[in-house]
């Protein structure tokens, strides 16, 4: 998460300390006596540099012990309205934790017409009786036992792995509705464990669904309801070691189950980083990134996942696929890595990845620029991309999102700060004549050598000035990045008060960015109205990545569903319409979330008949019995 890397070393360490405390707490607890879990662990092929393996990891086998079973993130962290009716962010994990957010209530009431009086409670605990009993393949279980790989068919474990974080998935959980869930969960500890599991699955015709961080937003983890075989969720979370670091070539060989925050933290300890920071990096895993073609916030410096991977291993029903060397580029026919990248768990399990690493940046600096309107902002980003001088991250938020960010300002401690804030506001709106209902803000993150950062910063601000942009301080920048990661928690708060929402993304050529943003936002408003949504929805976007030939755009969409009999259905119809509008306006089906099952319907028109045939024939060869039967993508 952007946030984690923000406050410099001291803050990072503080967080790490906290996490360590929590995790040691878990470790000290007596090992669960759940009969289903076998205690035999396989030894990872460890090396000397694997100093970190002894340290605590974020993701335990029983995830629901520290994470919400029906919402986003850690159980101890959530937004709520306290007794005084003020919004508060609980826990101790984030910078916003423990703080009062005075503006949030008004913003929620003003934006959605929501009311603190009208609560829509979630089912507090999982009722195991609503989970169908596991459909076990006895022969498979028998043989699995003999391998010593831990497994479970505990209801809580299975339910946790039956979903990602799509709105309809979380909404159903909150209502206590459980659909088809995996019949059992296995926790391989290393590549060889995975090989054994896949062999057994093939032998006994069991359906395998790889599970990494569980942060999917494409219905990719949903169990196909038509699947009659026993479904086994293959949780990679225990394959979380850095196996070696090669400082000569600046690569690290890592097990694919490691989650982003652990990977960064462990590499940081050796003075390195990958620089791959998707918004979900607290929970999403390396294997998941590979399987969905993930993109990180700082891709301008470090590249997207496909640029970062040097080598990888995937276990398929046909055997293990990997390249024979680690050459930085090869001309050996179509790159087989590209069959794996974006395969969304339909071909096999990614087990180990060799990734590029970089020395940790010496200096980081946030920044922000206010533009009189979104059009000017986009023109500025386009120019920055043209000059190829984009900072590590640059994001342009529209007016609604700017206001949203504003509503998330924590209570100010000193009168002086609020005085300064008032002065800034006066300067921008009155003195510079910006319309508060049109202005928008770009947030920036610079990284690298101190001198170069400062030089770079000047270059970018100079360009911005040409487009009417005014520098608006580091603070605003930092808060902008915080927004993207607390938003997932905020959705749970919204759902407590009849507000549902989601984000979705696309990529689009530069010349169509403005048209696409306007059309999609208008379409959302239009569709909501058509479908009887009582209040105008929140329909907002940001340009979140820049490329030579286009940009990645991220939309947030939420509405108050009071008065609707089937809010999720309405939600899905609107989201579908929004995607149609994206495609009609020249946008892509997905920039980094993937296709899953949610966007499958558009695949054929997206990649053509022949393209579908190519993918299908790979699937048919690699996995003829459809062992990896999550039915994503095709």
């Amino acid at each position, binding site marked *: 998460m952007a946030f984690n890397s923000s406050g410099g070393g001291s803050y990072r360490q503080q967080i790490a300390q906290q996490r360590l405390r929590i995790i040691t707490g878990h470790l000290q607890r007596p090992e669960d006596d759940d009969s289903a879990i076998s205690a035999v662990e396989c030894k990872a092929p460890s090396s000397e540099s694997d100093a970190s393996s002894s340290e605590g990891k974020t993701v335990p086998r029983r995830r629901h012990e520290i994470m919400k079973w029906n919402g986003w993130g850690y159980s101890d962290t959530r937004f709520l309205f306290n007794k005084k009716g003020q919004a508060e962010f609980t826990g101790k994990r984030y910078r916003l934790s423990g703080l009062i957010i005075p503006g949030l209530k008004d913003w929620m009431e003003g934006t959605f017409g929501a009311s603190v009086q009208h609560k829509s409670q979630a089912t507090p605990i999982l009722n195991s009786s609503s989970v169908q009993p596991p459909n076990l393949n006895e022969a498979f279980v028998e043989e699995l036992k003999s391998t010593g790989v831990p497994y479970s068919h505990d209801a809580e474990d299975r339910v946790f792995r039956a979903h990602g974080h799509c709105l309809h998935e979380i909404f159903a959980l909150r209502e206590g509705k459980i659909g088809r869930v995996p019949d059992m969960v296995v926790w391989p500890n290393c590549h060889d464990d995975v090989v054994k599991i896949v062999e057994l699955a093939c032998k006994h015709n069991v359906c395998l669904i790889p599970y990494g961080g569980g942060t999917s937003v494409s219905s990719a983890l949903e169990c196909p309801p038509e699947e009659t075989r026993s479904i086994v969720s293959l949780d990679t979370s225990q394959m979380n070691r850095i196996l070696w670091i090669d400082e000569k070539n600046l690569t690290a060989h890592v097990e694919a189950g490691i989650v982003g925050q652990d990977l960064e933290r462990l590499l940081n300890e050796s003075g390195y980083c990958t620089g791959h920071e998707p918004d979900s990096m607290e929970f999403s895993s390396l294997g998941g990134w590979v399987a969905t073609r993930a993109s990180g916030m700082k891709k301008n410096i470090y590249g997207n996942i496909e640029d970062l991977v040097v080598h990888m291993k995937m276990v398929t029903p046909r055997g293990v696929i990997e390249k024979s060397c680690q050459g930085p580029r090869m001309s050996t026919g179509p790159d087989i890595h590209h069959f794996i990248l974006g395969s969304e768990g339909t071909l096999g399990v990614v087990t180990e990845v060799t990734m590029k690493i970089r020395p940790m940046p010496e200096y980081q600096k946030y920044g922000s620029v206010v533009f009189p309107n979104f059009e000017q902002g986009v023109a500025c980003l386009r120019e920055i991309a043209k000059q190829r001088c984009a900072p590590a991250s640059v994001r342009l938020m529209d007016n609604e999102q700017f206001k949203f960010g504003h509503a998330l300002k924590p209570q100010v401690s000193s009168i002086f700060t609020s005085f300064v804030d008032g002065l800034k506001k006066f300067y921008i709106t009155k003195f510079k004549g910006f319309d508060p209902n049109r202005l928008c803000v770009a947030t920036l993150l610079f990284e690298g050598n101190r001198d170069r950062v400062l030089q770079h910063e000047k270059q970018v601000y100079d360009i911005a000035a040409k487009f009417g942009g005014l520098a608006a301080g580091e603070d605003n920048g930092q808060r902008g990045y915080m927004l993207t990661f607390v938003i997932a928690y905020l959705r749970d708060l919204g759902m407590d008060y009849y507000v549902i929402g989601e984000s979705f993304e696309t990529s689009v050529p530069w010349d169509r960015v403005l*048209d696409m943003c306007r059309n999609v936002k208008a379409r959302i408003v239009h569709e909501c109205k058509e479908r009887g949504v009582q209040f105008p929805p929140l329909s907002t976007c940001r340009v979140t990545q820049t490329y030579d030939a286009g940009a990645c755009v991220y939309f947030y969409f939420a509405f108050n569903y009071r008065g609707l009999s089937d809010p999720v259905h309405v939600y899905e119809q609107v989201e579908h319409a929004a995607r149609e509008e994206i495609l009609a306006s020249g946008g892509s089906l997905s920039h980094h979330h993937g296709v899953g099952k949610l966007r499958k319907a558009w695949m054929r028109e997206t990649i053509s008949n022949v393209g579908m045939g190519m993918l299908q024939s790979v699937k048919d060869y690699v996995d003829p019995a459809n062992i990896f039967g999550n039915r994503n993508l095709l």
Partner: protein
Amino acid sequence: MASKPVYSLHRNPMLKKRDDFEDVLEERRSSSDLRYALRCYTPVLYKGMTPSKASMLKSMVLQSDQLHFVMKQVSTETGKAVDDIQEEASAILEEMAHRLQLSTIRFFAYTLTKVFKNLFRSICVNEEGIQRLQQAIQEHPVVLLPSHRSYMDFLLMSYILYTYDLALPVIAAGMDFMGMKVVGEMLRMSGAFFIRRSFGGDKLYWAVFSEYVKTILKNGFAPLEFFLEGTRSRTAKSLTPKLGLLNIVMDPFFKGEVFDVNLVPVSISYERILEESLYARELLGVPKPKESTSGLFKARKVLSEDYGSIHIYFGQPVSVRSLSQGKIDRCQFNLIPRHIPKKPTEEIQGFVNDSAYRLVRAQEENMVLKPWVLLASLLLQNHHQSQASGQRPGLTRDELTQQAAWLRDLSRQYGAFLHWPDHASPSEVVSSSLSLHRGLVKMSEGRIQLAVEQGGQVNPGEPRTAVTPEEELLNRAVVILSCASYRNQALHVFLRPALLASALHAASSNHKQEVFNSFSFLRNMFSNEFILCPGATVQDFEEACFLLMKTGELQVTEHEVLVTERGQRTLGFLTNMLDPFLQGYQVVCRFLCEEASEALTEKQFIPDVRKFIIKHLLAGRLRYSEVLSSDLQKNALAALLRLGAVQKMKGAQQGTLKVNKVMVNSLEDTLGGKLPTQKAAVARL
């Protein structure tokens, strides 16, 4: 038969609810015109846009990628420097662009009020339509599509919008207005921009023009206004739509440059058209006076007469987005930069054509019909019948009143938007209509008839001596054509049943398929003459059956279509209504078979066919002098060209027409109902 939700609501026209009207002149008659002209005018604009200067618009157009691309292209093709071409473009734009000024509008608001109060009893507007329009202007770029029957139309539109504090439109006008120096500039300053009548091959002109229109539209600077029919209809019948501008205004939506475009059909109906006899003369071949300022002043005598009332109906805004849903895949524009001009695909052309017809239909449906329209239809039919049978011409007041009441009820059942005053007795209504149109009717021996005997009625200034038979014929035709232009206003109401009635008349049996074939043939033949949506033959047939069954005139079984006892009168009336057109097409066919030389050019066609028709009329071989209408003759030729019976030659004999005499002959026979219609049956029931 794909039917649109927007229209399917009106499947049964009887169920259609229309808005009420309000007279905008009423207030003007009781308060100061000057204050009205100077009042505070603050229209709401699209998404709160601030109005932009005309000069800014010009520079946006000249700097657009679209224009730059074409300028470079033209430069490569012609070898001229880009700078020169840029200058050319700038000159084109200068010639074209509007210079809307509020002061000019205020001037017009003042003078027009004076004029209107003189000319018209009332100008009625549906206020609900105005409210819908106001809403639409704020949400989406709006295109106003008024019907076009008179020069008055576009002044009237701007006048109404000013009155209701709505954004003033920018109006596409034909270059012919430019001939009038002062007036042309006045119109320019009241929001008109001028386009050449034809610029087919001129790439640069097209680029400047389309970019100009799109820039106005995309930025929502002002509502755009143009006439779908392309020119004023001289016959009061809707003209088949022109697609060029509609294509241009839809393009930004297809390319995702705007979220939606709202098209607002506006129906303007005049109780009495100012250009009444002017049009008739024009149709008969007396060339229209070139528009000139002095000519306009001569027309001042027009100003002293009573022209009754005007009704303006602002229709339901039609969203291009919903209209094209499921029909146009907008992804087709994803792979090519949008500033590169591309010929619209067949899919898009078809869609635009379809939409254009639907919009003209919407205009037609909301045209207010005055009682006189019905009287004109009755008197015309009576005129022709009495001529044929040698009876005394004319109807007594009672007969006319009784027949008018019958026709009133019939037209209402067919969904006509008839403005028949309910508070007055039918005979009062008839009297008042007759007095407004006293130039066209006369009373002789207690019988009301068309004023055809003395040609002098039409132009009282001229001496009545020494008239040749031909002149007399033309003078009579002026009255007939003037009268027909009122009957034509009601044609769209009766068209489908009338086609069915004629089909029944022509078909050799009552077999349903045969009747349908005959219907389909006639419909196809007349699709340049009337507004008949392409591809809607079955729908139209069903509608006609439905209407005639509903009123008890037909019995339609699974295989047969039977006329009932009481249906005879209505069916007779309906066939008579179409008869002049049938005869007109037949005589054009006959001309082409008998007289057309090898070297007949398109240009020569109208004068030649006119001579031919005059000869036959004078010889008493033709019944309807209406067939002298050049509009009808042109439409007939267009239909024959479309059907391939006549071909335009290319190459050496450019402009000449090649007639397939066998085919023309057989079409003529089929029109006369002598042959079974097998060939024409394209669609089957």
